[in-house]
């Protein structure tokens, strides 16, 4: 692919309207890789950001999973029904990809959650914490608590959505969030 073609593609999706996105999705579903590249460039920041937070700021892992998510999206475009926004479908698919990887990792490494909780130490007050400090503290949360915190507080999901998607009771989702916030406060130096 030459550079000029790439520049044209990027410029057409800088501020995509839903009908533009929909047209790109239809072209990509028909096998148009240029259209899919435009979709990738429009969505990669949000997808990579979400996966990065779910995998505890492991950049190499997040890059690998972002690639995997987009490859899966390419394969599964035929199952996208245009009933919801493409961005929502892609976001869910990406969260799914990351959660599957997290589950696999937890089984093989048998991470000790108590040890992870102890690792969440620090003396920085929340209000003064910089983005890097917050990201570090979030990344040190136990996997399940981190997933609920990221999906609820960062991605804006509701407890009902989290409980449905993660297969837990609404009360468990709230409990995990409460636990995650407590650990985060402690990590940032604020009494829970």
């Amino acid at each position: 692919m030459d550079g000029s073609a790439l520049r044209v593609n990027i410029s057409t999706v800088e501020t995509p309207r839903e009908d533009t996105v929909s047209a790109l999705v239809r072209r990509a579903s028909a096998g148009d890789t240029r259209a899919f590249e435009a979709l990738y460039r429009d969505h990669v920041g949000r997808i990579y950001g979400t996966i990065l937070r779910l995998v505890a700021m492991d950049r190499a892992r997040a890059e690998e999973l972002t690639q995997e998510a987009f490859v899966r999206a390419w394969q599964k475009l035929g199952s996208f029904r245009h009933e919801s926004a493409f961005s929502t479908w892609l976001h869910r698919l990406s969260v799914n990809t990351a959660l599957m990887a997290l589950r696999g990792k937890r089984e093989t490494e048998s991470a000790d959650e108590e040890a992870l909780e102890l690792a969440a130490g620090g003396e920085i007050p929340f209000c003064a914490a910089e983005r890097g400090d917050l990201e570090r503290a979030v990344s040190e949360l136990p996997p399940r608590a981190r997933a609920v915190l990221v999906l609820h507080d960062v991605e804006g999901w509701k407890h009902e959505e989290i409980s449905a998607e993660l297969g837990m009771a609404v009360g468990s989702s709230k409990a995990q969030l409460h636990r995650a916030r407590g650990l985060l406060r402690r990590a940032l130096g604020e009494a829970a």
Partner: protein
Amino acid sequence: MSEFEWRNGMRKVGGPVEPGRDLWPDIAAKISAVPQEKRRLRLPTFAIAAGVLVACGAVLFAWQLQNKPVPQQPTTLAVNTPVSKRVINNVVENDEHAPRKVLANASDELNDASTSIQQALEQRPDAVFLVNLLNKTNSQRLRVMKKSYAG
């Protein structure tokens, strides 16, 4: 700290993040080697729901199996899932090999459930709850397998 202040603080963590390198060349190489799946007839929602119900029943039964000794004498078990009833009906009364049969049947049911969920995931790759269900089912399969070998 109020909920508002907390959410305000958490906004610092959110938002798009650009990867350290352009991932597109790798993705382009991969998708050129991976064919797109053709649009298939969708499984009706009730079929996916049935698969999930079967899985839930199997998981519930396997859980009960782990927590209750299987009686040697005929008795009434307070189990209401269709899968559990089907499995238990297969147990021959007063059969000394009954526990082993129950485990084998539970294992079969869990395998079927796992396959059903994977098929549902093919149809709905964005359904996160199916991944969680699949993970739970696979964990139960592992436990039942271990119990079979131990017994």
